[in-house]
Structures are given as structure tokens and as C-alpha cells.
């Protein structure tokens, strides 16, 4: 590799990393699932451009007008290096203590609950909170199963809600930078470590006031099971 082909080599590496992100599904830690085809196309284009540039650079003996160098381009090594060496994890509990995104009130009547699976109705945390806050009657007799990662409750929050923890899931619109955390307080004696994933079954409890704009929604759990992190850590 000489100085002329180095920029093309960088693009080739970038393209291959982008394709690998999609192939290994690691991209799900950073962006929404719908971006996969675009990322794949961009990766292939980058790799082709890089490869073509390297070939041309090798072939080309006569002096081309020097492409003004782009020193800034080397910054691309940072995300590539992070992805190859560190492989940054999906967003988790960091910075989420005591914070949650308020749930918007539904504009129309909510659909009926989905049919139960294995004896319980599965809802996303956001959906559960929406129903618990704005249409609690529909939840009365339901047995529910929720999935999320644990964020330990602070002493003040435990004083308000009893023993338990916050089951949390981050919803993405585009990428992790716009992630919004939705959470439900799980009343249980289990005290899980932060960022471990749990499947929780139980009955709805009445929402209870907390520090934020909205009351915390509560699930009184009778079954708390540690589970592996789902393929896609985020919900939408």
C-alpha cells in the first residue's frame, strides 16, 4: 500500500465493516432494524469504490493531479477501530436512574389486548404504561408478561413503591442517539444487577407518583426470570 492507495484502502475497510455490521446483526445495537438494506448498499458501494481506487492507484504510474488530501478522513479510523476492537454495547442503564420518557395519551380507543401466550399477555413496556395510565380498566383481569433490562431503584423510589426494580427498554426512532427509555416499576423481592435482562409476569398494580412528570406504572410480579438479551435490544 502506498500513499496514493491509502485513502482507497480506508474506504474498502469502512465498506467491509459496514457489510459485516449487517451480516453479524451487530448494527442492531446502534440503529433501527430498517436501516439494514441502506447500510448494506452503502457498504458494498464503499468497498467497490475503495477496491477500484486501489487498483487504479496501482495501475497509474503517471502523475495524476494530486487529489487534495483529506487529513480529516483519518478520523474514520475512530468508529472503525471502536467497532473492531471494543464493539460498543447497546445502550443500557447508564444515566437512566430516575429518568423516563413520558407516555403519550392515546388519541383513539385502544385495541383489545392481544391473546395470551403461555398463560400471559405480552406487552412492550411503553404499551403497558399507556394502558395502565390511560385505560386501566382494560387490564383488570389480565396476567401480563413484560421484557426489559433492570435499572435498580434508588432508596427514595423504593420508599415510594416498596421493594423492586425498574424494568426498562429503550425505544429507537433512528439511532441510539435518539433513544428514549420507557420503564415500569416491578414490585418483587428479587434485586437484580443493572443491565441484566428479565422476563417478568404478574398483575398490574395502580400507578404511583414518582419524581417525574408522570406517575410510575407498576407491575406486581410473582414470577421473575432472568433471560438472555433479545436479538434486538431496542423496541420501536
Amino acid at each position: 500500500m502506498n500513499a496514493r492507495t491509502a485513502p482507497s484502502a480506508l474506504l474498502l475497510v469502512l465498506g467491509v465493516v459496514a457489510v459485516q455490521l449487517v451480516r453479524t446483526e451487530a448494527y442492531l445495537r446502534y440503529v433501527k432494524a430498517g436501516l439494514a438494506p441502506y447500510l448494506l448498499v452503502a457498504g458494498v458501494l464503499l468497498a467497490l469504490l475503495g477496491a477500484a481506487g486501489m487498483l487504479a492507484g496501482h495501475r497509474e504510474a503517471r502523475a495524476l493531479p494530486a487529489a487534495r488530501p483529506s487529513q480529516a478522513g483519518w478520523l474514520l479510523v475512530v468508529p472503525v477501530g471502536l467497532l473492531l476492537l471494543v464493539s460498543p454495547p447497546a445502550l443500557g442503564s447508564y444515566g437512566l436512574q430516575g429518568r423516563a420518557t413520558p407516555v403519550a395519551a392515546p388519541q383513539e380507543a385502544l385495541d383489545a389486548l392481544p391473546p395470551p401466550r403461555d398463560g400471559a399477555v405480552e406487552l412492550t413496556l411503553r404499551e403497558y404504561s399507556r394502558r395502565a395510565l390511560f385505560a386501566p380498566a382494560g387490564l383488570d383481569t389480565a396476567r401480563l408478561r413484560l421484557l426489559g433490562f433492570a435499572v435498580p431503584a434508588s432508596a427514595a423510589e423504593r420508599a415510594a413503591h416498596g421493594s423492586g426494580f425498574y424494568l426498562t427498554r429503550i425505544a429507537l426512532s433512528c439511532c441510539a442517539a435518539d433513544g428514549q427509555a420507557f420503564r415500569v416499576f416491578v414490585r418483587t423481592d428479587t434485586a437484580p444487577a443493572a443491565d441484566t435482562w428479565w422476563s417478568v409476569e404478574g398483575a398490574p398494580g395502580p400507578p404511583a407518583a414518582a419524581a417525574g412528570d408522570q406517575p410510575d406504572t407498576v407491575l406486581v410480579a410473582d414470577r421473575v426470570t432472568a433471560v438472555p438479551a433479545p436479538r434486538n435490544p431496542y423496541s420501536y
Partner: protein
Amino acid sequence: MTAAAPPAPVDACCPPAPASRAALPLPGVLAVGTVLLVLAVARGPLQGLVDAQAAATWSTLAVSVCVQALPFLVLGIAVSTLIAAVLPPDALVGALPARPGLAVPVAGVAGALLPGCECGSVPVASGLISRGVPEGVALTFLLSAPAVNPVVLVSTYVAYPGSPGMVLARLAASLGTAVLVGLLWCRFGRPEWLRRQAVHQRHAHVGRGEHALQVATHDLLQAGGFLVLGAMTSATLHVLLPPGLLDSLAGQGVAAVLTLVVLAVVLAVCSEADAFVAASLTQFSRTAQLAFMVVGPVVDVKLVALHVGTFGRRFAARFCPLALAAAVGTSVLVGTLL
């Protein structure tokens, strides 16, 4: 007959770049490689120094913004390269109304019809300018394409269920910003503020395809590098922003608007997603939320970096404050009518 400016002589020879900067130096590769190697080896001890969770969150955010923007940047540069390689130099100029007073709104509406996001529209605007489209017109397109395209309007509608007024307000304020900035630029802008890039001029002895290859490689590295810079800045501010700070700030009046304007610049959320973030900031007034959505696609840390990389520092130092002021102004104006 309107006197169309003759296309810039393609073969006007630019001075050869100084040898020291003529290519990416191999020492650079080695230096970066060494740093990464040291980081990889010393990861354990280093983790003791910084909060490991903060560092992990920082890298996730920085990588996310890059991964999210990469496809659109590649797409934008592909379009821009195609425009430069395929269209005859005066095709676009001929298609536009000659009077800026007409061409600017036309560009604004053209931008609104095309789905595109901010990272892609910067190189496309650069391509338009290189084909002789007046700067003010191309910049209007640059501002309106990400801010008011169909995808963005639909996501705004979804994020604000039951208040279609928010969609209209966003459309009006964003389009107003784009047209206002374009008209001002046509009137007061100076061509020398934009950096002309020698690489974009094709020399007679370089083939068309080869030239396109060179330009695309150059633009991708240049824009990509600055994108990384923007992503790292945004991630840093994101992590440093004290949790709970927002809750303690005023939710009404001027302070609310300014707070969310700063937040929009710092967070660098892409325009398809910002409505959801804005809608969740329920403690702030609707005007402030509108300003968040109008400012975000126009000026944020990632975009400022991209502007510097694509058009140069002198341009960014004038364009970004102007666009920011116009965006805040129109949002407040539209917000008071809301």
C-alpha cells in the same frame, strides 16, 4: 437574453498541492495504528481511570451517529458525483427560473418533495453548486430537503397524534427558514466564502470515470472525517449533560425556546427522528418543541462539522449562524400563531 455565466474553464490548471500534503502519509497510518494498539492492550488499566459505563455509552453514541449517517452520506455523494459526471454543466441552470426570487422558492419546494436527510443533502448541494446552480438556490435546497420531506412530515404526524397543526407549523417554519436564508444568501452572499476544491476540476488528461472515482473518494473521506468529528462532539456533550438538567429548566417563554435550541444543536438527532424526541419533552412549550424540530435539521454539531468539511470554515462561520437565527426566528413567529 440573460447572460449565463460561462462554465468555469475545466482545464484551468490549479497549482499543484504542496508535496507535504499531497497524499495521506503512511506515518499517519502507523501513528493511528499505534494509538489503537496501545488502547487495545491498555484497556484494562485505562478502564480504571474513566467511568467504564460512561466510556461505553460514549462510544455507543458516537458509533451510532456514524452508522446512522453513513448510508445517507454515501447516497448523497453518489448523487452528487452522478450530477457532476452525467449532467451537462448548464442543464440545471437552464431548468431553474433565472430570477433568484423565483428560483429560491422553487428549490425550497423541490427539497420538500424529495426524501433526504441532512447528511445526504450537504454533498448534493455541493454538487449542485459545482454545476453552476446559484449558491443561494442550492443552499435553500440543502435546508429544505431534510427538514420538510414527506418522511419527516409523516413521522411528525405520528409523533404528535391529534395535533396536525404541529405538522403544518413545522412545514411552514422550515420552508420559511430555507427560503429566507436562500434569499439572503442570493442578496448578500459572496462566492469567495465557499472553498473551491481543486479536486473537483477535471483535467483534460484524466478520464471521466477516473475523475469521478477520485472526487467520490475525496468527498467521502472529507465528509466522513468531519462526520466522525461531529458524532464524537455530540456523544461527548450527550454524556456530559447532567441527568435531570432538563427537568429543572424553565418550560415556558424565551428560556424554554433557547434551551431546546441548544439541545437540538447538541444532540444531533436526525430529522426523521427528532419529532419523537421533541414530543417527549412535554414540560416545554409547543413553540420550544417546534424550534427543536426546525433547528435540528438546519444546524447541529454534526452538520456544522459537515459544512466545514464540505464548504470550508469561512462558509460555515457565516452560514451556520445565519441559518440558526432564521430557524429560531421563524419558529417563534409560527409558534406564536400556533
